[in-house]
């Protein structure tokens, strides 16, 4: 079973077409394994990125260095998955 301990989902708002292109570059860096839940489309449309824990520092550095504004949408994906699993277990009982 794949665990997502420490993975975060970042909501990133690109301010320009150039920043959208930069997010595309981030997505192509396979070693970071960024999972785009919502793709960058236009400056008005936020992108949601699930970032594996080992890549968090690198991704945040990338965003900071290119002056992206972003927030942490989900602090720890595994915590939510555990809650979901518990809720299903209770329901089944």
């Amino acid at each position, binding site marked *: 079973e*794949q665990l997502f301990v420490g993975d975060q989902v970042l909501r990133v708002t690109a301010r320009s077409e150039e920043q959208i292109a930069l997010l595309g570059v981030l997505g192509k860096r396979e070693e970071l394994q960024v999972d785009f839940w919502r793709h960058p489309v236009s400056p008005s449309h936020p992108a949601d990125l699930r970032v594996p824990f080992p890549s968090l520092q690198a991704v945040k550095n990338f965003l900071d260095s290119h002056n992206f504004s972003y927030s942490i949408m989900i602090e720890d994906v595994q915590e939510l998955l555990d809650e979901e699993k518990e809720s299903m277990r209770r329901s089944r009982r």
Partner: protein
Amino acid sequence: IKRSSSTFDFASYHTLDEIYDWMDVLVEDHPNLVSKIQIGQSYEKRPLYVLKFSTGGWNRPAIWLDTGIHSREWITQATGVWTANKIAEEYGQDRSVTAILDSMDIFLEIVTNPDGFAFTHSSNRLWRKTRSINAGSRCVGVDPNRNWDAGFGEAGASGNSCSETYHGPYPNSEPEVKSIVDFVKSHGNIKAFVSIHSYSQLLLYPYGYTETPVPDQQELHEVSAKAVAALSSLYGTKYKYGSIITTIYRASGGTIDWTYNQGIKYSFTFELRDTGRYGFLLPAKQIVPTAEETWLALKVIMEHTRDNMY
């Protein structure tokens, strides 16, 4: 104790087996309205089931609904279950639903990608694609919403088998897609096709693979506006609407581009809610509100189809 479709916990997420069992109970509870059809089997040999809601007649004009083609979008399969129950319960009670079913059939595929869905329960909650093995690649699966024969392989899909938007080796390579294609073609009288995804709060119509507007753009736009207004009236959920390419992004090989090109004018795709900023982990307590608001929009589309037969 007799099983009952109405004692099912609609406010919880369920496994594939639980959903498939529940479908049988729904059929048992409404034998004169609901039947279960197997339209094919998945890559891993799981049955692909479609619920048929019909009050009789032969090859009546029909409405197709599907949920769960992207397996991790659990709110969609849950909405599909709730919607199936709603259709069954409303027939004979709600004037609009009764009128629709008195002249048309409804087909609903709740788990369009069962292999992916089972995988989200057993191994990787965030799996999106099918589970087919890609020759010569360590990466598994094809994006079934890039695998249709409409601008297949063009910009807006990936040729990299490791990508979440990998289009696959050729159109309809995925049995989950091919089974629907065969069903739609052999039926020949489907008038509306609604494919339900999550999460961006959008109602979209073709095209995704080209900027060329569809000939019916104005009508589809007006129907979308009406459907979104109905949806938002319940909980104030904000939806945007428009063509795929102008509203989100270029996407080639998509489901409703193919259905539209097959002559199914009322082709739409939903992106259901995430008002709670939870993405694909939408809390179970939001299942019923999401399904309720989506139902209002679906009814607008179904009513419009019934009243504007072509």
